[in-house]
């Protein structure tokens, strides 16, 4: 699965804001941190704002703030603001889809899509933030 640029920027921005609850960050600060275009980030932040995930605060010292519970907002919630994931992403039937091989392939791809959606829906922002910090410690019980 390859995420679109806007989707990746959105995930970076939301993670950065969610890691600092209640604190405001300007688009420039976020763009600098991830080496991304501030214009592109601005468009992404507007989409996140319309979805109620991010709040823009105007004026001197203004910026953006995360709105929501990082233990309940998932990667899928963010990704679906920018692109479709799973069967919905395939809007029109592909050539050969009605053949035996096409139907079989469709079932396999559906299986993969279902797993992708379930995985993205199970990973919250809080988990993403933890994953970034977590290192495997030898001798500890591993969780699979």
């Amino acid at each position, binding site marked *: 699965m390859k995420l679109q640029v806007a989707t990746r920027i959105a995930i970076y921005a939301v993670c950065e804001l969610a890691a600092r609850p209640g604190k405001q960050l300007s688009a420039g600060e976020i763009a600098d941190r991830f080496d991304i275009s501030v214009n592109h980030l601005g468009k992404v932040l507007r989409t996140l704002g319309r979805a109620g995930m991010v709040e823009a605060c105007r004026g001197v010292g203004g910026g953006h703030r995360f709105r929501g519970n990082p233990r309940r907002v998932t990667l899928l919630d963010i990704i679906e603001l920018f692109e479709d994931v799973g069967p919905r992403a395939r809007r029109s039937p592909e050539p050969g889809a009605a053949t035996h091989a096409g139907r079989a392939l469709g079932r396999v791809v559906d299986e993969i899509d*279902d797993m992708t959606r379930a995985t993205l*829906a*199970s990973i*919250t922002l809080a988990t993403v933030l933890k*994953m970034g910090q977590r290192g495997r410690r030898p001798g500890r*019980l*591993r*969780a699979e």
Partner: protein
Amino acid sequence: MKRARRKPDGGPPRVVVGVARAEDLAAVVQLDAEATGLKKAAYWRDRLGWCAASPRDRFFLVAQRGSEKVGFVVGDVRTWEFGAPPSGWIFAINVKRSDRLQGVATLLFDAICARFRRAGVEVVRTMPSRDAQLVLSFFRSQGMMAGPFVLLEKRLDA
């Protein structure tokens, strides 16, 4: 089970985790029914007895706040086929709806993992439905990732 102590600020008692006893059955059935809508007293009685019969490798733990049961976790040490060494296996975890987002499930998870560790296993596994987003999110938050096994199934009438 350790006694629940009151916090110094006089707030609600801390949650403590201990081994489930027969008298916890009604609370376990109620907690499960709150989540699933099904009252399965016979099933949970059987699970309690099954765990009590082999306490070194089967664990049925309850979380208690004061005198109230607010959650439970059940698991055992399982020997695996396909060349895998034994691992800890969690097959049920539940927290009362009004007590969620307060770290109760994490306490239960940590407590059962400590017992798995003492039983000599190095890996803990579980297999929730992919539709059980809350349960999946919880296990993910504890650092669980996709393991090396793939669940396959087939309808027997197909």
